[in-house]
């Protein structure tokens, strides 16, 4: 069984991709294709996590940070879109770099959804929070992110981008109604949720930034974690 696992998985993936393409081209039915594409977007960074040299300390560090991000979502469960997850992912990516940020964001989405319920939105959330971490890591050495206001603006923008990525999933289910009107309506109806997310990002970032960056940087230095990036 173990010997056949990889060929079997690859064959299965190919099979689903072909089915998705057929459904999309033949019947203009895009739900399956969209899920396949999101999975493909998540794939490379997880492959890299499997392949690269990684100390057990670094692995545990990633697990702790994703778990903290996932736990932080629980007390705010009653308020939709108010989640400190994005803020924690941004701060971790700021200290530990883009790849670590992506993994922390994606795993935090996966783990917190065990408590909130998995659904077709799980891969999209994994992708969206992963991208939050990835971009924060890419921009961490720019002058913009170095200033506190720059980081707050970054969090604010991602509050909206996150909601917009999640909206794609909804729009894709109506291929025939696709028009700028539908897009505008979908984005207008999510505006208040996105605004709440953006403002809560600013709020949590301004509260957490100073202390957490100091703590994380000290750990990074003391134990020599994820230094090579």
């Amino acid at each position, binding site marked *: 069984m173990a010997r056949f696992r990889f060929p079997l998985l690859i064959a299965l993936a190919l099979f689903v991709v072909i089915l998705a393409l057929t459904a999309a081209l033949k019947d203009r039915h895009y739900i399956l294709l969209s899920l396949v594409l999101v999975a493909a977007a998540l794939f490379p960074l997880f492959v890299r996590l499997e392949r690269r040299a990684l100390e057990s300390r670094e692995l545990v560090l990633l697990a702790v940070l*994703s778990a903290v991000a996932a*736990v932080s979502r629980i007390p705010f469960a009653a308020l939709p879109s108010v989640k400190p997850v994005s803020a924690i992912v941004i701060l971790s990516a700021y200290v530990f770099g883009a790849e670590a940020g992506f993994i922390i964001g994606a795993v935090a989405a996966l783990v917190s959804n065990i408590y909130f319920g998995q659904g077709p939105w799980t891969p999209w959330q994994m992708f969206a929070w992963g991208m939050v971490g990835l971009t924060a890591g890419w921009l961490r050495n720019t002058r913009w992110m170095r200033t506190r206001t720059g980081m707050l603006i970054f969090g604010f923008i991602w509050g909206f981008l996150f909601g917009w990525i999640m909206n794609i999933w909804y729009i894709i289910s*109506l291929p025939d109604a696709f028009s700028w009107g539908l897009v505008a309506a979908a984005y207008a109806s999510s505006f208040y949720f996105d605004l709440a997310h953006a403002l809560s990002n600013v709020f949590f970032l301004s509260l957490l930034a100073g202390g957490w960056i100091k703590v994380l940087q000290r750990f990074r230095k003391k134990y020599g974690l994820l230094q090579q990036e």
Partner: protein
Amino acid sequence: MNKGFRSMHPAVALLYYAGLLLFAALLFHPVFLLTEMIGVLSLLLMQRQGRHLLRALPFYLLMAGSVAVMNPLFSHRGANILFYLLDQPITLEAVLYGVMMMLVLLTIFIVFRSYNYTVTTDKFMYLFAAAAPRTALLSLMAIRFVPLFQRRLRQITLIQSTRGINVNSGKLRKRMKDGMTLLKVLLTWSLEEALQSADSMKARGYGIRKRSTYGIYKLDRQDIWILIVLAVSGLCTLLGWLQGYAMLEIYPRMKPAVFSWGEAAMFASFCLFVLTPLGLEGKEKWLWRSSRRSGYPSVTPMKAGIRSMSFRSR
């Protein structure tokens, strides 16, 4: 307790849910979608998950219902115009398409609800631990940390409140600052401790060789039979889909739905696929019922065919 469909090998459950999801996303026919939805719903009800489902239902209805409303408002394809709304034609076809999409989404939501109950995290990890060992270990550790951190946060709150740091009293500014102090304590404590356990992992030789995996699940004869039944019926359904069956043509003009012989055969195999777990669950219920009827409950001998986790690990 784990019994019935829940006690089957994880591969069976995964094949079942992957198939259900695939069919929900591929087949575009009200009869098929309704069959799938009702099948999974009755499975959930038999497993006594009705109350949990009811709690999530408003959200599901809101999401799916909005699709049904949005489609006719923005799509004006179709030949039969029902009426005009703000000079925009509302067509029968667009309404039907919206309703179909609503069915698709509802089915997917309900399938995931059932998946959450049946494929628990350990089963999922068992299936994927060998393919992606590091990702599996990482997510497993994170999952394990969540309840630990919640417990720790309660301890920290209790201890810090003796020195006046708590989030329940004082001005808003002070309370927020205190809350952040608590979180920072949690972060440093957990990181210190986790890095120690990482060191002990290393000392015990983690990462020296390829990770081996321990499997608690064994494929027994019933699992294999069910796997074969699911695979064959699923493939027959897919073949039917490739033939162009089970696709309701709505645009540009709705075609009358003719249930041909081929489609009927496909529907039969689809029903077999969807209803197999229900049959297992029902058989289990029946065996428990009839075992209660004869003799003392405490001395009831183990009936052949009753499956439960405790029974198999013996």
